[in-house]
C-alpha cells in the first residue's frame, strides 16, 4: 500500500473529479453533436448524386486515414491560426472529435440504412406514407436499432481518445493526474501508480455503463 496515502491528500480527489468533468464534457458534447452530424452524413452517403458521394467518401477517408493526434494538431496549430480563428484547445478537441465521430457514425448510419430490406420502403409507399413518414416512422427506427450497439462502441472510443487533449494543453483528468504526481514527487515517490489507478477506474466508470447499455440493447433487439 506504499504511496496510497497520496489519495488522501486534501484536494486530490476533487481535482481529479474536476479533470474527469472536463473529459466527460469534451466527450459528451462531441458525441452529442456527432449524432445529428452522423445522421446527415449517413443520409448523404446513401444519395445517388456522384458529387455528394465523392465528397462524403473523401471526408470519411481523410478522417479515417489521419491519426486523431495529427487532426488535433492540424485543428489547433494549423487551422485556427491560419484562419485567425480564436479557437482554444478544448474547442479544437471538440471540433476534431465531432468531425471524427460524425464521419464514423455517418458510415454506420449508411450501413444501417442500406441494410433495411427494400420491401419496407415498398410497403410504406403502397400504404400511402410520404417519403418523410417512411423515413421517420419505418426506416429510421429500424436503422437506429441496427446501429446502436456499434455507435455506443464509438462513444466509448471517443471518451478514451479525449486523453489526447493533454497534448494540446487541455487540463483534463490525465493532465490533472500528472500535475498531482509532479507536485508530490518527493513526498510520495510511488504515488504514480495510485493516481493512474484511480484515473483508470474513472474511465472505467464512465465507459462501463455504456457497454452494458449496448449489450442490453443488442440482446433485446437481436431478433430483427
Amino acid at each position, binding site marked *: 500500500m506504499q504511496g496510497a496515502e497520496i489519495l488522501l491528500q486534501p484536494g486530490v480527489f476533487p481535482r481529479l473529479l474536476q479533470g474527469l468533468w472536463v473529459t466527460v464534457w469534451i466527450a459528451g458534447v462531441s458525441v452529442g453533436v456527432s449524432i445529428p452530424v452522423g445522421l446527415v452524413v449517413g443520409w448523404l452517403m446513401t444519395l445517388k448524386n456522384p458529387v455528394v458521394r465523392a465528397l462524403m467518401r473523401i471526408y470519411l477517408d481523410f478522417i479515417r486515414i489521419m491519426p486523431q493526434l495529427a487532426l488535433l494538431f492540424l485543428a489547433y496549430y494549423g487551422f485556427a491560426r491560419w484562419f485567425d480563428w480564436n479557437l482554444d484547445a478544448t474547442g479544437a478537441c471538440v471540433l476534431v472529435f465531432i468531425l471524427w465521430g460524425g464521419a464514423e457514425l455517418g458510415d454506420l448510419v449508411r450501413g444501417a440504412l442500406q441494410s433495411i430490406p427494400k420491401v419496407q420502403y415498398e*410497403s410504406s409507399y403502397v400504404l400511402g406514407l410520404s417519403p418523410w413518414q417512411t423515413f421517420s416512422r419505418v426506416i429510421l427506427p429500424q436503422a437506429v436499432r441496427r446501429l446502436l450497439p456499434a455507435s455506443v462502441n464509438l462513444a466509448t472510443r471517443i471518451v478514451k481518445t479525449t486523453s489526447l487533449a493533454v497534448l494540446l494543453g487541455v487540463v483534463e483528468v490525465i493532465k490533472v493526474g500528472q500535475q498531482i504526481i509532479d507536485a508530490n514527487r518527493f513526498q510520495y515517490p510511488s504515488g504514480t501508480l495510485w493516481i493512474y489507478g484511480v484515473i483508470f477506474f474513472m474511465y472505467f466508470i464512465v465507459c462501463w455503463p455504456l457497454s452494458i447499455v449496448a449489450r442490453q440493447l443488442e440482446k433485446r433487439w437481436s431478433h430483427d
Partner: protein
Amino acid sequence: MTEPAQFNTDNAVNDEAVTAFETSAPSPSSDCKGFEVRHLVKQYANADKPVLNDISFKVEHGTVLVVLGPSGSGKSTLLRTIAGLEPIQGGTISINDQVIDEGRPGTEKAGRSNRSSALRTRIGMVFQSYDLFPNKTVLGNITMAPLLVQKRDKAQVEAEALKLLDRVGLADRKDAWPHELSGGQRQRVAICRALILHPEVLLLDEITAALDPEMVREVLDVVLELAKAGQTMLIVTHEMQFARAIADHVILLDGGHIVEESHDAYAFFAHPQTERARQFLHTFEFE
C-alpha cells in the same frame, strides 16, 4: 390437371366470416365499373424490349383476376406498376373510369410513379416477402397508415383493426411483435394492414411463395373469404388449384404479352385454347 378438390369456394368458407369482411370491403360505387388497364407499357432504361408490352384487361368490381405465367413473364412487374412502385411508359391505369396513372415516356429510370398518397391507398398490395414493420406491434402495423395517411379516428381505427384480426384468426396476437409470429401469421396481418385502408383493388404478389408449405393454407383460406366477400383482387400465384378455385378471370402472360385470357377459370384450366397455355399448365402436372 387433376380434379380440384382442395379449394372449393362454396364449402371451404364459413358464411359468418364472409359477412364480417363486408365491412372492410369497399362499398360498391353506383356504376360498379371496376379496375382497368389499357395498353400498358413498361420499359426499363437498359433493356432492348419492354417488360410489359401493350397489356389491356378489365377487372369488374367484386371479381378476382388471377395472373399466371412463367417466371420472367412480367407478372410481378405488372402488379408493381399497378401499385405505382414502377412508373409506366405507356397506357393508362384506371379505377371506375378515373385514370390514376398514365404512361410517360422518359420515366424509364425513375424509381416510382408520382401518384399521390391518397391515390396509392386505393390500391392495396401484399408482397411475397412476409416482412411487417419490425418496430411496430401487430396492431401498430395495421393502424399506422389509417392514422398517419388517412388521419382517421384512433378508437375507430383500432376497433376496425381488431375486427380484421379477429377475422383472420389473430385477435389474441394484437400486441405481439412481428418476430414472434410465423410467416403465415405475418402474411395474414399484412392482409389486414392492406384492408384497413379499404382499397378498391387488392394486389397479391405470390404471397404464399416464400412460406412453409403448412402455412400456405391458412393464408389462402383468408384470401378465399375475401373473394367471397366481394373484394376486387389481382392475384399472382403458383398455387394452381387455388387459382382455379378463386379466379373469375384468368390471364396468362408470357414475354410481356397476354397470351391467353379467359373469363371461365374452369374452362381455362380444363381446355386451354393456346399451345402456350397447355404447355404452361402441363408443367404443374405430375402423372
